[in-house]
């Protein structure tokens, strides 16, 4: 991420220091493929930067995506205490931190993404962007990158609060597992977000639809409360959906008793499968123009 940003900064400097002449470009076919790739990646970072700016200035998005997971962590520990819980007798906060990290990633990469993308589509913003030379995949990658940055940042805050306020033990050896699970989960939920955008016609209906789908899933997937206490059939239902696998993957990677890399490949595999399904739906059905104008 940092590397990408550095690259982007260099590209920007190069562009702004270039003389302001409008001489016709040398045919772009002559540009080396590597140069074009670098420019495209710079453009992804450029897009992500402005998407982040828009996110940071949106109070509602800030509250639901950044504040709420943190508030949940503080409230849960306050209400339920920080005693040991679950069959493995871990500290309660050790349980809440990965669960709410999953919540943060889903809030940033799925809920917020669906709301903002459907809003931008309804306002004609996506259509206007498509009237420019920017490639579609750059817009999507830029938005996805901004969602991942937000999700990972909130997760980092949760981990820091857990570590320093509640004494959650963070195993160092599983950092790759934590990161990999978070990244795979982020990508999967972004893909699913774009897929869901194809089924939502207006920004107004996005919020209630998302809550109706996600709230029950949070409760049966171990995001708020351990799912071991749930009836077997409910656990089976949860296992079909990606929420449970992101939460489970993060629980294992952040398990204080964990050793090794902390990667649960079955969870990652199912998340990747969902990502593929979401991507396929989005590629086939995603539209850039407002629904009303399509008539």
């Amino acid at each position, binding site marked *: 991420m940092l590397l990408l940003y550095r690259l982007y900064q260099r590209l920007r400097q190069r562009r702004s220091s270039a003389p*302001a002449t*409008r001489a016709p*470009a040398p045919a*772009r076919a002559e540009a080396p493929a590597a140069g074009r790739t670098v420019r495209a990646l710079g*453009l992804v970072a*450029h*897009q992500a930067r*402005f998407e982040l*700016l*828009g*996110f*940071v*200035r*949106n109070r509602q998005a800030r509250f639901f995506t950044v504040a709420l997971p943190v508030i949940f962590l503080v409230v849960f520990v306050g209400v339920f205490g920080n005693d040991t819980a679950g069959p493995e007798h871990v500290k309660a906060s050790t349980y809440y931190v990965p669960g709410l990290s999953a919540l943060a990633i889903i809030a940033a990469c799925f809920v917020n993404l669906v709301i903002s993308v459907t*809003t*931008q589509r309804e*306002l*004609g*913003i996506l*259509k*206007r*962007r498509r*009237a*420019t*030379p*920017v*490639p579609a995949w750059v817009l999507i990658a830029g938005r996805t990158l901004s969602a991942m940055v937000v999700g990972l940042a909130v997760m980092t805050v949760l981990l820091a609060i857990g570590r320093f306020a509640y004494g959650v033990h963070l195993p160092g050896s599983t950092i790759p597992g934590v990161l990999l699970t978070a990244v795979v989960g982020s990508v999967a939920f972004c893909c699913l977000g774009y897929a869901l955008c194809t089924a939502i016609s207006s920004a107004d209906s996005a919020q209630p639809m998302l809550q109706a789908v996600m709230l029950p899933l949070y409760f049966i997937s171990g995001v708020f409360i351990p799912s071991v206490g749930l009836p077997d059939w409910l656990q089976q239902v949860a296992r079909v959906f990606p929420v449970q696998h992101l939460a489970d993957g993060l629980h294992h990677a952040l398990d204080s008793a964990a050793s090794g890399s902390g990667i649960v490949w079955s969870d990652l595999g199912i998340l990747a499968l969902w990502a593929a399904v979401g991507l396929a739906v989005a590629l086939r059905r995603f539209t850039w*123009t*407002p629904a009303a*104008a399509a008539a």
Partner: protein
Amino acid sequence: MSATAPSIHAAAAANLADDRAGDRAGDRAGEVVIGVSGLHKRYDELEAVRGIDLKVRRGEIFAFLGPNGAGKTTTVEILEGFRGRSAGQVSVLGVDPAHADRHWRDRVGVVLQESQPEPGLRVRECLQLYAGYYTHPRQPEETIALVGLRPQAEVPTERLSGGQRRRLDVALALIGDPELLFLDEPTTGFDPSARRAAWQVVAGLRTLGKTVLLTTHYMDEAEHLADRIAVIAAGRIVAQGTPQTLGGRDRLPATISFTLPTGVTPQALPADLQARAERDGDRLVLTSQHPLVHVRRLADWALARGLDLPDLDVRRPSLEDVYLHLTRGN
């Protein structure tokens, strides 16, 4: 660009004549930037565009004038590459917009009929974002100044007025320094001062040498801004020409009108004037191909009787008269 007018009145014939005049002027003014012939667009039952031909040349400001639902936006969206077509040839900057690629988009600016600014961003940031999309963008500062938004450069887009938002739209379409600009109803819903401000921006594009295709349902807007106008009604172009010659405007009769002095009946007028007179309430309206002759006849008659005609009015047909005539029944 003005056509040497043959004495014909049928809209179709005038259309043809102007097209020829356009071809002659084109030799001087430059290449065809937009060429359309036999364009059709059908949506299931509805045929929105029923055979449109038009040519727009480099550096022209071309207005597409017509009532709502006439097919303006459909046509423009086909030219912008946002819609497919059912039949016909379309070439924009030498490319079929149905196969528009990024290089083509680099040369074209689009102001959509409906689009809102980027939420959460300030004016300058919007321009910085869009500048990144183009190969050779203009400077954001200069573009902000061009549309008259310099005082608002740091204002969040949510706080802009409707007119300012539309000018931001124009700035975003200009940031890539396009050769060709599409403006779809740039001033719909504006108050008069906002419209004047927007007109200034569009008129400023002329000095930049941009080719502009704008759609509007305001006659005064087309008259004020355009070098040439095509009137579209029910999916067809019913007239094409300069604001002065459109629909044979330069050859339509003038009207001479005045309020009849009390006690005077129309029958008191000389016979040749009576023949062209029509009552319109208190007023008498004379239609004349030779207004100077008939005004003089009228003046001689009135002065001889010691009558004053204080509200005498001599008027050429306005573009609005022509337009209403052309689009009547559609």
